[in-house]
């Protein structure tokens, strides 16, 4: 323990001196949601890119990549000790290697880029649960060469899931855990390459869990995979891969500290409530925030070995299907969310309404039905209020409607319906010491977003109005969501609200040359691409009758990338590598439009021009040592991502309206040092140590503009955001880990790790860092510091352990047991994530306090698998 303390002390010292350092192979990492960027206009939370719903785990629980986020299972093939820690040990802390967002790392399946063309993120949920057939990955983190695609600062992961890549055999596994799912079954059978040239692999899995760790959450996820290869001859192989992973996940919300304290648990979740079942007695748990995904993918590939040195891979793919997130919506009624700020005692106490505050406090703490109905969604009340709302259509106001009730509350699905197809060609050839790679890909991407009425909650219809626009125009058409179908009564299962498609047509050619000298390996790569991006409005709405329907201006982003690197071999065991890349890329598509749900208008910069491409400049220098019993890597990296667009929609107290808040020209800087060491003693003992010092921050003062969401009023433009040197939130920036593993002779092992996390920051709300926000304050006022100071979360450590035991009999059957336990000390007071609400009040910052999530206490996963 003393050693650990010293390590932490050193860490602090380095902190003061600050920034720099090194790399290598790497893992993937990011566990972000796939940013199904549903901007919730009634919610003031940050958008989904930072608002990860259920945080899934990593660590030993690496297989539980439930929601769209956890990718850590992919790192199994990585030999790099730092990457191993980053995924298996640090993932639970939401550690993002080098602070990168997911868009910086390419994810490939059989060489096909599956990063979302709109957001750059990769949808891990699309193949969640297919661990058996996605475990064979080639991963390289950071800048470097790739023979499959042009890759940037975050490197790439390629999942090889062709049938012919799997050995003959059957694998059955069962896992029991207490985190996201409670039970998982996976079955995989592969024929291997058969004599007739065919190979077939089938896999299926199911993951089930109901309120396993966090109340109200659940998972019901299944997956199916089929792949078939036909090897025609030595030169031609054709592969077909198809998979689908339908999943349904009840999510958890982030909460204010006050809510956690009142509820008496750090795992309080406001997203669910009780609903009385049809029998009138049973109270059933129902979650209002459910994500559903069913996105099949089919890949047809042909590998042509032109000769022993040349290979041509041609693939066509199609990826389609829906993902959705459900949410409550309401009209002319109180907010149904139990954690709405006015329902918290602090709101009353702040107004010095002590009696009301005390009463609310008592209700929040109540352990009976009243408490449940205070802390959780009161479904029965919502349904009762809907049934009681005998309300006429506005056009027949004054007449009593005795046959139908208009829902005050509904549950809606915000759907993304994707159609994404493409063609991908990769050419590789070796000419002596020169290795050339090149490729070309064509992608046509259409993502249709709309809302579907999931449940009328006891009412008979919902009117297709924009309730935020209903009091704006004298003209009754102003509030219509669909002018061609005014005053429509929406029934269960019908589409309504907004309906638009984002289109991305992307073409890319790339090339790379690698050359090996005796002491030096070098490579260089180039990419050129063109992306045509536009929005197609499928409905004309009353707010923007002329600009909501049809195609927007078609934006063309011509992008390029350059990269180069070298490895200098000091001797056979010591290497120095240097890599660098510069590339440009289009901004996130949804950020290009002022209000993508309702109109075609484009975001312009302060000078009136269209938004330009983002730029990424990245370089790194590493030292590597590889001895039989000793491995080391040290890397210094430095990445600048500039000219980004940042977009949120939220309720602004300043303007008393829903506001689209857009920053242009956002730059961020990621730099740091990674060190990983591994030493094996007496064969059986393995010691590991890693240290990652990072400094991830915003590096300039972006310009902000804001628009009223429901009409074309620009609220302000050219407002300077004093964001420079604010730290990027959501990940520990400095991590330290120590591991020890003992490997026994009879196929068993035990291990433990100690991990220390520091420099975790809350993602800042840019609006609080503007001169306008603090105009009434002097720098000496306490309010000033409260508004502008970025919060840092407390440091913490985790101790994890795992054990494995394998039996082999008859030379054919393998039985493996694996047990892993995370957070052995059961520390339930670790806040590993938080954000500042976008809605805020400059007189009382705590009125809309920061929201947080707590890391679970002790979690475990016990797994047995049988292969034959």
């Amino acid at each position, binding site marked *: 323990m003393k050693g650990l303390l010293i390590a932490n002390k050193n860490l602090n010292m380095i902190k003061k001196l600050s920034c720099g350092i090194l790399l290598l192979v790497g893992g993937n990492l990011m566990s972000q949601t796939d940013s199904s960027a549903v901007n919730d206009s009634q919610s003031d939370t940050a958008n989904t890119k930072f608002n990860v719903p259920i945080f899934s785990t990593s660590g030993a629980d690496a297989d539980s990549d439930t929601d769209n986020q956890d990718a850590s299972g992919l790192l199994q093939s990585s030999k790099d000790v730092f990457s191993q820690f980053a995924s298996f040990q640090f993932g639970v802390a939401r550690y993002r290697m080098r602070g990168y967002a997911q868009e910086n790392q390419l994810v490939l399946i059989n060489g096909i880029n599956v990063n979302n063309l709109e957001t750059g993120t990769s949808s891990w949920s699309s193949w969640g649960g297919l661990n058996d057939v996605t475990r064979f990955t080639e991963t390289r983190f950071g800048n470097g060469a790739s023979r499959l695609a042009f890759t940037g600062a975050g490197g790439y992961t390629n999942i090889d899931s062709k049938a012919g890549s799997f050995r003959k055999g059957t694998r059955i596994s069962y896992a029991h855990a207490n985190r996201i799912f409670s039970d998982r079954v996976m079955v995989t059978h592969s024929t291997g390459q058969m004599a007739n040239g065919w190979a077939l692999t089938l896999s299926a899995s199911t993951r089930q869990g109901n309120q396993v760790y966090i109340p109200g959450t659940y998972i019901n996820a299944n997956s199916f995979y089929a792949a078939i290869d036909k090897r025609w001859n030595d030169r031609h192989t054709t592969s077909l891969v198809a998979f689908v992973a339908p999943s349904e996940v009840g999510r958890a919300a982030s909460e204010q500290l006050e809510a956690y304290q009142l509820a008496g648990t750090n795992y309080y979740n406001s997203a669910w409530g009780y609903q009385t079942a049809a029998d009138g007695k049973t109270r059933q748990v129902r979650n209002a925030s459910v994500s559903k995904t069913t996105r099949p993918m089919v890949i047809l590939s042909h590998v042509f070995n032109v000769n022993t040195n040349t290979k041509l891979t041609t693939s066509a793919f199609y990826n389609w299907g829906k993902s959705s997130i459900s949410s409550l919506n309401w009209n002319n009624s109180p907010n149904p969310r139990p954690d709405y700020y006015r329902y918290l005692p602090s709101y009353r106490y702040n107004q010095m309404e002590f009696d009301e505050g005390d009463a609310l406090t008592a209700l929040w703490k109540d352990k009976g039905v009243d408490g449940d109905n205070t802390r959780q969604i009161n479904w029965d009340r919502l349904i009762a209020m809907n049934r009681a709302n005998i309300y006429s259509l506005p056009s027949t106001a004054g007449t009593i409607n005795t046959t139908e009730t208009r829902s005050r509350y509904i549950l809606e699905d915000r759907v993304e319906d994707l159609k994404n197809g493409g063609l991908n060609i990769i050419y590789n050839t070796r000419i002596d010491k020169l290795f050339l790679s090149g490729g070309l890909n064509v992608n046509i991407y259409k993502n249709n977003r709309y809302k579907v009425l999931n449940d009328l909650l006891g009412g008979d219809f919902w009117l297709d109005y924009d309730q935020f626009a209903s009091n704006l125009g004298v003209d009754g058409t102003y509030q219509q969501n669909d002018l061609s179908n005014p005053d429509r009564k929406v029934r269960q299962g019908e589409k309504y609200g907004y309906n638009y498609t984002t289109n991305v047509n992307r073409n890319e050619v790339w090339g790379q040359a690698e050359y090996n000298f005796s002491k030096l390996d070098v490579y260089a790569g180039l990419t050129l691409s063109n992306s045509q991006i536009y929005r197609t409005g499928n409905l004309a709405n009353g707010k923007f009758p002329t600009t909501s329907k049809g195609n927007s201006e078609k934006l063309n982003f011509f992008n390029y990338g350059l990269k180069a690197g070298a490895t200098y071999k000091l001797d056979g065991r010591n290497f120095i590598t240097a890599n660098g890349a510069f590339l440009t890329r289009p901004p996130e598509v949804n950020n290009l439009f002022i209000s993508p749900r309702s109109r075609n208008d484009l975001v312009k910069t302060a000078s009136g021009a269209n938004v330009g491409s983002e730029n990424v400049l990245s370089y790194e220098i590493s030292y590597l040592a590889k001895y039989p019993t000793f491995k080391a890597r*040290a890397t210094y990296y430095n990445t600048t991502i500039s000219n980004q667009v940042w977009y949120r929609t939220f309720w602004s107290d300043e303007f008393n309206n829903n506001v689209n808040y857009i920053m242009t020209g956002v730059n961020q800087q990621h730099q740091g040092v990674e060190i990983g060491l591994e030493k094996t003693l007496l064969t059986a003992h393995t010691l590991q140590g890693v240290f990652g010092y990072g400094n991830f921050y915003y590096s300039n003062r972006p310009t902000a503009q804001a628009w009223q969401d429901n009409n074309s009023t620009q609220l302000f433009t050219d407002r300077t955001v004093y964001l420079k040197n604010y730290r990027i939130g959501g990940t520990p920036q400095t991590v330290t880990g120590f591991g020890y593993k003992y490997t026994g002779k009879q196929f068993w092992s035990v291990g433990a790790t100690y991990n220390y996390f520091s420099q975790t920051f809350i993602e800042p709300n840019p609006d609080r860092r503007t001169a306008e926000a603090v105009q009434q304050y002097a720098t000496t006022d306490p309010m000033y510091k409260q508004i502008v100071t970025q919060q840092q979360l407390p440091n913490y450590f985790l101790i994890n352990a795992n054990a494995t035991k394998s039996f082999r009999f008859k030379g054919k059957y393998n039985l493996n047991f694996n047990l892993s336990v995370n957070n052995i000390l059961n520390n339930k007071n670790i806040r590993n994530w938080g954000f500042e609400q976008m809605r805020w009040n400059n007189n009382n910052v705590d009125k809309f306090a920061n929201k947080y999530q707590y890391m679970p206490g002790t979690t475990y996963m016990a797994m047995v698998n049988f292969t034959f």
Partner: protein
Amino acid sequence: MKKLILIPTVFFTTLVFTNCKKTADLTPTRNLADGTNQSVTQLKAIASSTNTHRFTTENYVTGVVIADELSGNFYKEVYVRDAANTGAIHFKFLTTGSNLFIGDSVRLNLKNYDVNIDPTTQILEIDSVSFDKNIAKFASGANPQPIALTLADGKYAANYGDLVTINRVSFASGFTGVQFSDPIKQISGNDNIQDCFGNTVIVRTSNYALFGQQLTPTGFGSITGIATSYNGAAQMAIRTPNELYMNGPSTCNTYITKNFNDNLIASGNWTQVSVSAPSVIWKTGTFGSVTSATISGFGQNAENWLISPSINLSAALNPILAFRTAAKYAGLVLEVWISSNYTSGLPSTGTWTQLSGFALSPNNATSSYVWTASGPVSLNAFKNANTHIAFRYTSTTTSASNWELDDIIVGEN
């Protein structure tokens, strides 16, 4: 191998040391030093009821909140006493919910605001203040104390807008035990309080006040609130009924009162003794609505004593004398004397001590009957069984003031 490890170690250590942690951006604020801090006195010199002043540069007023919206008796407004303690100012807001409470220290940036003295209320005010954008609450927990006064001491009007405690008052007949206001019929309350001399102030209570249905107290004591006025009539807006300590005996605890409203000088066993110029005597007279005693020694060398009946102060706790005067023309001042052994006849038959330390109406060439409250004058040194108070008027042939005297009281403080 060691050498090989040494090289990169040095290399990376250098990198670490060359990068330094950067401090977060500082969002700019207004520089207070560039502006002027205005006191209420200064603001009153700049603005008046007929002159609205708009600030176009950085100016600030800093103070502590003395009345907030909590009780509902104040709505979209707070009253603030300035930091220099020179007076109070009224902030009127566009919306409710300022989250400013009594004891909060606030600073308002006056730029682009109009400051004036409201002609109706005579209170210094700023209208349409945006508390979100222009008020900074930089501290809280101050405990601003009310200014203690009585209705007779003439200080009330000078403190309009400020927090005051009026001592020695009770709700007037017909206004005791009634609702402060009527939130059901939506009627604001106008309830008179009065002191022992009949000076009154209207306690004005909004029909939105949360305490509106509480009943006014029936006793005698002190009341605390914001001193206001309406078209020249003094009013008071209380913050909460909890600041009314009016549970004392329901009548004024007085030994003698004399207000001349009966048009008699001698009633109540008062006597007057002319030492010289017997024609110069106290008479009653009514001027405007006030009936008082009046005396004039124009062109005469006069001395007249108006002497109270004997008062038994032997058991008194904290006796005081109060009265009020109005004077015109330059001359000798009215003197007040006290004796513990006088019985009757000429004043010289007793031993007298002159009282001092109280204000009198100005009597000079330009003065013209300005009623001025005098006292309370402590009589603690004179707690005797046979106490007489006397008002001694003197004039010369060349210098004589006219004096009016009214509302004489000897009572417990």
